[in-house]
């Protein structure tokens, strides 16, 4: 057994579901004895590459994803792409997550991919699927099982810690500062070109931010039914539930949506028609969004919230 001679290199594109699950992925592959390469924060070059590679009408998030794969493709042996059809019975993920693997294969013929499918309506055990795939590369079952266990644990600890942090933010909030709930998919919220500039700017305007993706998922899925009964996209349900949970603490809600996003377009419209007691703002991001116009919009939204806050005096 060639010890440490050549570790297999696994590439993780820093985009899409990476933002949700990366803690466990990184932990798993490192513990299992692989070398990890994570693509850098999205930059202009990655974006440009992705835009060129993707079919025109794809959502911006997918374009960025392809840009990251392009960055990784010559630096690693395999790219890790889980395929998500459904996480809970009778629910679905956006179709992008079920077609990602084939889109990548067709865009980069010959690329080597490690993949497995999660489909709550069909297979019970995501677990076995991953293991089988990994066993074929590394023949050390105990190490892999251990890695899996620690990965899951680390992820769930991390999520708990984030929720706690957000809860204490609410507890200790400055009554004079407006608080805004940012509602968007984590790969939009935390992307260095999409959400990050926006949240940074908001903070510079003296606003406290809550993030809708930081939430107890079980509770959120339950709460989402108060706004929408029929919704079946899991990730959107989580965000809707978070709105229900955090609504009482915030002065305004900002939706960030990339263009063109199928699920968000409908869900946000539903929110606009149903949530009438809190100011909402919807910001659509595409590859051409100019920063200047955006800032003016954010500024005036924050101004409205501040004025309202003064009037009401309380909270």
């Amino acid at each position: 057994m060639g010890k440490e001679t050549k570790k297999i290199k696994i590439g993780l594109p820093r985009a899409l579901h990476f933002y949700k699950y990366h803690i466990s992925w990184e932990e798993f592959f490192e513990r299992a004895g692989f070398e990890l390469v994570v693509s850098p924060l999205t930059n202009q070059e990655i974006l440009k590459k992705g835009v060129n590679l993707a079919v025109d009408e794809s959502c911006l998030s997918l374009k960025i994803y392809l840009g990251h794969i392009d960055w990784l493709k010559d630096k690693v042996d395999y790219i890790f792409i889980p395929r998500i059809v459904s996480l809970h019975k009778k629910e679905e993920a956006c179709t992008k997550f079920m077609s990602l693997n084939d889109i990548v294969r067709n865009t980069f013929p010959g690329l080597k991919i490690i993949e497995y499918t999660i489909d709550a309506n069909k297979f019970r055990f995501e677990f076995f699927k991953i293991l089988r795939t990994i066993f074929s590369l590394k023949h050390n079952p105990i190490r892999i099982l251990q890695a899996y266990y620690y990965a899951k644990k680390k992820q769930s600890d991390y999520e708990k810690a984030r929720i706690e942090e957000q809860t204490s933010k609410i507890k200790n909030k400055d009554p004079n500062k407006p608080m805004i709930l940012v509602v968007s998919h984590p790969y939009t919220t935390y992307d260095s070109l999409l959400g990050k500039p926006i949240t940074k700017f908001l903070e510079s305007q003296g606003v406290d931010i809550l993030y809708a993706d930081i939430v107890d998922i079980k509770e959120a899925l339950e709460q989402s039914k108060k706004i929408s009964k029929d919704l079946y996209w899991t990730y959107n349900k989580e965000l809707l539930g978070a709105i229900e949970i955090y609504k009482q603490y915030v002065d305004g809600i900002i939706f960030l949506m990339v263009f063109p996003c199928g699920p968000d377009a409908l869900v946000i419209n539903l929110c606009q028609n149903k949530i009438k007691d809190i100011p909402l703002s919807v910001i659509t991001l595409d590859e051409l969004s100019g920063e200047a116009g955006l800032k003016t919009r954010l500024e005036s939204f924050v101004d409205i919230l501040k004025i309202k806050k003064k009037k009401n005096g309380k909270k």
Partner: protein
Amino acid sequence: MEKNNNIKKISFPHMGNYFYALKPLALLLADEVIMPPPITKKTIELGTKHSPESACIPFKYNLGNFIEALDLGANILVQSGGGCRFGYYGEVQENILKNLGYKFEFLKFVNDFSIIKISKYIKLNNPELSYFKIFKTILFSYLRVRLIDKIEAYLRMNIGFEVKNGDFERNLKLFLNELDKSKNILDLSKLKKKYLEILKNIPTKKPQNPIRVGIVGELYVLMEPFSNFNIEKELGRRGIEVHRFCSVSSILHDIFTFDSHTKSFLKHAAPYLKYHIGAHGTESVGLANKLRKQGFDGIIHVKPFGCMPEVNAMSALHRMAKEHNFPILYFSFDSQTSETGIKTRIEAFYDMLMMKKKRDTMQI
């Protein structure tokens, strides 16, 4: 006992000519069926005005149909369908319409077409009906669908070659009129005989070896000619024989056979797809690849702008087209699509296919 003056008027959106087929079924749930006015520019303008901007175009057409039907007095609306977003259309549309101040009851059949469920649902709403009557009506509607598909399939392959412009369409109208009046299954079989006969006798002149093109893509824009600017007719006029494989019959067939179709399409889609890519995307790729192997001259792929499963399919189609030098023409429809643009692109595509055909035959 009917509540005083509370006449139930039911309506549902158009798609191609299928409204005629589903009318008897809808009638089980209400006293009267309101047919939304035929789709026009106004329909799509209304729909677009009140829809979220990035909703896909079928959403906007459906919403336009609903508004026009409500204005005609409908008080029960039905939304059904199974595209990737169709399942969620209903709730969003219901809220939009309520916010506009309309009063109505909204029925949703979402992603779910089992006959038993539908009949149970009908029984629940109208307990006086017997299950026998319900099943019979479902069957009747289904056979109407089949008949429409049969007639239209013939039309599609021949309309481009008619000698006298308008012959086929005139007869289609007559057919639909009679279909609307048909009472039972016997009527349907008479109609079928009569119109197939009539259509076959319409003079056409078809070239020996016409260019054959398959049309694939998203269901709604495939099946609603207004939304695709009559693309099939446009192709036909240029002497292209158009083959379409998807219709409501084929979808129903798929449902009754547990997706056997879809599974076989995944096989046909190899090596371009390994997994399903959502709604009809898999079929688009599988069919395109199959037709390519069968020697079709080209493929036309249609979809609403931003349609997710079909955009997913395009990465596979792009690669197939490149690897095999196989012509594929893509159309995306939204409320701003211009008809002239479509015509020019079809023309260019036709010229290209002609040249390729000539070149290929010369090589042989």
